[in-house]
Every structure is written in C-alpha cells, then in structure tokens.
C-alpha cells in the first residue's frame, strides 16, 4: 500500500507518542505513528513499578499508567497509530521527501511518503556478546529486560538462584522483582567502583533485601552445559583486568545482564544520520534535527534517559520543531559548537544558537562531590553556573543556559572542584 503523510513517527514509546501529540498541537494533522509491538507504550509497558511521572504529571505512576495517559491523548486526537508494524527501511527521495517502508501484520508491506521522520525507536540492551564474557553458552543467561518481560508480561519466572551482572536500573529493579517472586538473588556484580543505577534503586531494591553489591568486580567465567550452574566472580585491578587469584564462585541457575543500553540507530545509520560515538545517539541541532534534513530524533534513541518525564519533554520540543519544518518555518540561524571539557561525558545538543538561550542535557564521567558546573563563552561570558553536592553518571542533568551573545565563537561546558 502507498500513503502520503506529513510526518512518520517511528516508535510509539513515550517519546514517539509525545512527539505525535506535540505535532498535533502544532497543527500538523496528517501524521502516522508506528510501533512493532502489539501495544503502544514502549518499554514502559513492562515497567510495572512506581516512579514515573513525578516531574511531568506531579504524581507517581507505574510505567503502564504513564503510557496510558499518552495513549488516551493519541486516541482523543485520533492520531493514526499502526501497531505490530515494523519500519524496515527509510529512503531519501529526489524532492527531499522520504519513503518509509513498513511491514505490518495487518496491512502487509507499505510505502509511506513523508516530509519528515521522527526517530523514536528507543534502546536495546547490551547483551553477552557485546561484552564478551568468557565461558560456556548454556540456557539461563538473559538481559534483565528480557527477564522483566517474561515476569511482568508473560508471567514466567526465568530462574530461582539469580546473579545479576551490572547495576543499571533495570538490573536493580529486577533484583527486587525476582526476590518478590520467590527467587534468591545472590549478588549484583558491578564493573565500576560506583553503581550504575539511581541511588534510590540501590536502597529500595538491594539494601532493603540484603542483596550484596560487589563494586569493581566482574564475572570472569560462566560454567554449565545445558543450564548455567556457576559464575566466577573476580575483583578488578585498576586496568579493569580480573584478578583471578582473588576470584570466588557463585552457584546460580540464572544470570541477568544489566550492562547498558544501546540506542537502536541501525535505521538511522542506513539513511545517513551521523552518530555521536559517546552517546551512540544522533548528532542533533537545537531543533533535534539530525544532519539529514527532515529527520529528527528524540527519547532514548537520541540519548539514554533515566527519567521518562524528560523523554516526554524532549519529544514535545521535537514535535514542535518538526511542525515548523513541515511548514517551512524552521529558521536556520547561526550555530556555534558547544565543547565539553573536564568531567563532562557528553552534552546534547552539540551546538548552540547565537542570540538564543538553550536547554542542555549532560552526564558526568564518574561520580564526584562538590562540583561546580559552568558554561562559558570563548570570551569568558558566563552563561550558567551551579554548585552540585554530588554528581553521578546515572543522573542526567538538564540545564537552561542564558542567551548566547553575538560574536561568540564557541561555548565551553565543564565541571570544576570548588
């Protein structure tokens, strides 16, 4: 089937849904939202714990409840939503429009001609192959997210004696979830010297259940032929090499991996979008447009967010820019580079606009105490300054900087010890 629209939004997670609603609010009617899952909501549907929406809705919701709020708005606005529909290709056309190829369970193969595309595909989890854990390849090893889906959506417990590698939030939440379902979570093992997830999750998911967290440790071997039987845990030296002489073994029937998320940008790469090697999300300008005109990106596919509230906020801004683009009103003013320095792992967007204020997202390289974050121009005009008692890589900072003065050549962002 062939179809012509103004915008295709790929992914109906919180990012895609908020972008679609925002497009509608900005007067763009002819849009199509597609998701390969049978329900909208993205990763939220399997996050049945509380803690979503504190900023955005000023109340604590579960993942599905948060999703429901947006699904209601999608329905109310009669936004065309195709489920069980996967985007398999995007192509550029001569006239600058794009063709999005969608394979849909109900509708077969479809070619959607569109002026703009919003990339909102979210993330996938890093898996064993990505981190190359040595050892055998038995059953019982899976990502924490797969386990979450099995437990929360399918109603099956993957195992009873559990070790978790990685202290990302999904891993921590699954430690608690598996314990509640009667499993014995023996340990959470973390490569870094600090936890990967939010502090509140360390307290509520590990400490409350006396689950030990081994920092600066890794799993150096996996054994078991049919099903996993044991993991070897080793402390790490300063070069992140396992100290085998100090290793110990933990018996288990399940190993969950919570070792990071990778933005799902394979489609984006195919159409020429350039990625930041640090975030593995697209390089975008302040309108959240990628280097390919007409292709925008928001949500976890752009940068891994820890709070869904910020996803919705980012997607809303994205939707507004896309609307301008469609109406040929996206003014292209002078942009200058935003350079990260000391301790800033990444900052987004990578450019700021002369004569405008800007909203920046960033993360530090590692935890630190009593740091001051400053944003200055090359002629030392201060655009932002704030003191932080503690900074963590697990907590994304969102800051508003002042208007960038005329004649600035570049802007610098850095942390400094007080």
């Amino acid at each position, binding site marked *: 089937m062939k179809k012509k629209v103004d915008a295709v939004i790929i992914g109906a997670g919180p990012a895609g849904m908020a972008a679609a609603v925002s497009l509608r609010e900005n007067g763009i009617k002819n849009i199509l939202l597609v998701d390969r899952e049978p329900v909208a909501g993205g990763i939220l549907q399997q996050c049945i714990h509380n803690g979503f929406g504190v900023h955005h809705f000023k109340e604590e919701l579960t993942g599905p409840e948060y999703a429901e709020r947006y699904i209601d708005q999608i329905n109310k606005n009669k936004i065309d939503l195709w489920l069980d529909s996967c985007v398999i290709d995007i192509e550029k056309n001569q006239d600058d429009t794009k063709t999005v190829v969608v*394979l849909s369970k109900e509708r077969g*193969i479809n070619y959607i001609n569109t002026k703009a595309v919003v990339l909102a595909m979210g993330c996938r989890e890093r898996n064993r192959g990505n981190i190359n854990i040595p050892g055998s390849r038995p*059953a019982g090893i899976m*990502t924490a997210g797969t386990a979450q889906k099995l437990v929360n959506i399918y*109603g*099956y417990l993957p*195992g009873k004696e559990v070790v978790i590698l990685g202290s990302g939030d999904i891993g921590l939440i699954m430690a608690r979830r598996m314990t509640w379902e009667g499993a014995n979570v023996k340990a959470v093992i973390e490569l870094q010297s600090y936890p990967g997830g939010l502090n509140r999750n360390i307290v509520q998911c590990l400490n409350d259940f006396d689950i030990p967290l081994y920092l600066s440790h890794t799993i150096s071997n996996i054994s078991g032929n049919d099903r996993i039987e044991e993991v070897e845990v080793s402390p790490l030296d300063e070069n992140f090499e396992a100290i085998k002489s100090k290793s110990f073994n933990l018996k288990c029937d399940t190993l969950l991996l919570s070792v990071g998320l990778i933005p799902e940008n394979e489609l984006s790469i195919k159409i020429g979008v350039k990625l930041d090697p640090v975030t593995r999300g697209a390089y975008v300008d302040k309108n959240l447009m990628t280097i390919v005109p007409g292709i925008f990106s928001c949500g976890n596919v752009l940068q891994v967010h820890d709070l869904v509230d910020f996803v919705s906020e980012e997607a809303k801004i994205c939707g507004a820019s896309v609307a301008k683009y469609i109406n040929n009103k996206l003014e292209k003013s002078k942009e200058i580079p935003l350079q990260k320095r000391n301790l800033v792992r990444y900052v987004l967007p990578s450019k700021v606009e002369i004569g405008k204020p800007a909203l920046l997202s960033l993360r530090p390289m590692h935890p630190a105490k009593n740091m001051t974050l400053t944003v200055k121009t090359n002629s030392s005009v201060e655009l932002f300054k704030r003191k932080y008692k503690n900074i963590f890589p697990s907590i994304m900072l969102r800051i508003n900087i002042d208007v960038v003065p005329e004649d600035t050549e570049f802007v610098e962002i850095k942390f400094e010890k007080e």
Partner: protein
Amino acid sequence: MIDKYDVIIIGAGVIGAAIARELSRYHLSVAVLEKEIDVSFGVSKANSGIIHGGFHAPPDTLKGKLVVPGNRKFDRLCEELDFPFERNGELMVAFSEDEISTLQFYYDRGKKNNVPYLEIIGKERLLELEPNLNPDVECALYAPSAGVICPYEYCFALIENAKQNGVNVITGEKVIELKKNAGIFEIKTEKNNKYSALYIVNAAGLFADEIARMVGITNFKIVPRKGEEYLLDRRVGKLVKRVIFPCPTKKSKGMLIIPTVDGPVMVGPTALDIEDKVDFSTTRDGLKTVFNHAQKLVPSIRSTDAITSFVGLRPAATSNYSIISKFFSIIKSFTGTKPEYIDGDFIIGRTTVSGFINAAGIQSPGLTASPIIAEHISDALLKDGLKLEKNPAFNPIRKRKVKHLRSILDEKNFSEVEKLVKENKKYSNLVCRCENVTEAEIVAAIKMGHTTLDGIKFATRAGTGRCQAGFCTTRILDLIHQETGIPVEQITKKGPGSEIVLTPLRKGRDG
C-alpha cells in the same frame, strides 16, 4: 519391540546426514540415531562453513585426497537441496619473503591435490580484489573454487531429503550399548529403546571412539581441538568478499576472516587441544588472539563489533599409542604400538568388525569432503556385503519450505515481499527484528521438527542478530507453544535441562 534396519547410522551431523541421503538412493531400510534433540547440534553446528579450495591438507592423506572431489559436488548439491552456497574463493595472504615461500609450498601442494584455477596473485590485483586488506600485504595464493555455505542448513537439507526418501531419523536417542550378536548388531539407547541392524555406520563425531570401543575397536582416540569464533554485527558490512587466510605457521593454521554466506563477517577459529568433549567455553585469551590476528589481516576489524561468539570442537583422531593408552588404560589386548592411521586424518571405511563402518575423526575439511565421504561409506558397505539396489523412486530434490524474507529485503525486492504476504499473511509478522525473520519462516521450521530455540535459530537465523534474541525469545516461545502445544516452561534452548523459564507465576497473561 525391536526396530530392525539394514543400516543404522549413529550420529546426525553433516557426515551422518550425507551418508543417510546417499543410502536413501537404494532400496534399504535405514535409520539415523542422534543423541541430541535436533540434528546438526554437534560439531556441524559450530564451524567456519567454508567449502575449502583444497591446498591445505597433504596429498598423501585422506583429507588431501577428498577435499577437491568434495568441493566439486557442491554446485549440484546446492541445486538439488536448495541451501545457501556461494563460490566466493579463498586467499592465503603473505606479508614477508618467508611467507611468500610458504605460499609457493601451498601452491605446489594445491596443484598435487588438483585444486583448479589456483594462482599466486600480486599486491596490486590482491588489493583490487580486497581493498580492506592490510596494505602491507605482498601477495596471495588464490583459490577461486572455494566457497561458503550455511553448515546447519546444509545438514538440515540432507536430513530432510533423506527423510523424504524413506530414512528414519530419530533424535533424542543416545546409543549407550552396541553389541554384535550372531551377525546382527544390537543397540540399546539411553531411553532403553532397542534397535537392531545388519550394518552400523559410526558417524558420532567427537564420540566416534566411544562408539567404536563398544564393538572392541580401540585403535584410535578422538582428541577435541577447540576453536573459538566471533561473529560481527551485520552493520559492519562485507569487509571482504573472499575467505582470507594468513600463512600457516608451525603452530597454527591461523585466524581467518570469513564472509559468511548469510552476510555477517566471522573471525576465528583458534586451535587448542583439550581433553573435555563438552568444553564449549570461550576464553579471554581466545578473544584477544582472534582479534589480534584478524586485525593484522583487515585492520578495521574491531572486537567491539562482535555480537556473539561460539566454540567448535574438531574431532581430531589419533592412533598414537601413548595417547590412546592414557584414555583406554583398562584395555589389555592392545596390539602393537604402530599407529594405524595418519595422525589427525579421517578414519573412513571398513574395520576389523565386519559390518561396522567408520566415518570418524572427521575434522576440517569434513564439511567440504562430506559428499564424497558418503560415497566412500556406501562403497565400504558394498564391500562388506550389503546389496545396493537403486531405488528408482529416489527424489534428489529438496526445496526450502519457505523463502527467507531477509534475502528478499536485502535485494530490495519489495514486489516479491508483496507477493509473499499475499500468499501467506504470516510473512508480514516480523518475529526477529534484527535478522528480519517472519512468523512464516518460524512456523515452517517448527513444522519441520525444530522445536528448541537453538533449532529455530539454526533453521531461520532468528535470534542470531545484534540483540541476541532479547526481542524475539518470548515471541518464539509463544509460537512453539501455539504450534506444538508444548507448555512454555518445557521449551528448551537445546534439549532437556536447558529450559528457558522455570515456573509459570500465574495463569495466562495479565498485561
């Protein structure tokens, strides 16, 4: 009740499968007994998938003699059996004067083995053929007749065709006892089932020595040689068109760069002699070795592009007395110390026990030689007195039940996709999103009897991509359950003991 057959083949790897298909040309009752839950779950699932040109093995070995005739059979086999095969050629590259003389040595060896169109090519042409190679290369030995196949699909195709022609293939049936009684072989399996046959073909891969020992043959031992391989993300693209070998050293054949027939590039394998026949573990050292070597050949290869790894064990045979006696110390009547077979060579054919035929020690280039090994085995059976009467109804053609959506998408042949979806709606339901595998393909695999996650992975590639089954596991569990009625908690990765989930928490779905 005892099931009686003319011939029982023990082992359903590529060798047992090729023999089964070969014997199905004749009026015979044939069974294949396989201990694993599916076929091709032994050595044949974890290898490099190369149909070798044939310049590696010495001409006075069976390996050297059978590799080229085996290679030649693949065009016809591929036509008849419809498995992925591409003659893309192989290159052995040299970086130094020393290595250039090594190339010359292998050129001469290849000529003796009758490798067709073999030539040594210079730097310029080499870099033209393979622009991503390390620019420091000097020249290469080029065998355009080499190719790549998908090894399990080849094995599945052989088995399906053998079944079509009357062979009985029984999986999950481990032979634990084999005796010859009044001219008839009697088999007992772990499940306590009994079978009898006039002839036995021993194609038990890593365990062929143990099968042989059951009938008193103790003149060889299988020593596993471990090989680790790493698969790169499809996104990396085809870094090379041909299989790239380094010059072998005394210690090793070296790490290869393999453009698999399915698309992604694979690097490996390592080579390490081990004792444990079920040691399928990868190691940190293996990873480092593989990537260090691979980067020397193609500098842009990165270990961070690896999406998964696996281990294959080469069933290397030895008849070295000191090794054998270490393992079979209880055997008193060991005759002589002179090895009967060349160390590391195939052990094919008749034995001191009439009616017991070996197809053992089939390490590389076993995949390549498999079709010709099968012919040698039927000859050996004939010589041992089996009547081979052609079955006029033999049908050599096996067609893949369903097309792979991925290959059609790769060619951007969207009208073909439209046609497929029209014929079978299940083609529009994507189950594995990394490798673009649809419900149609999964259901067809389940209907062919692949009811484990690994079986479906080998049959369809679902779960082999970058997310490593994070996305499709639950969907495939659903489909297996739907099609077979097996309760989800009993579905396994690769047979009993490898269940995916342990306990249902509650009945049905609760969102």
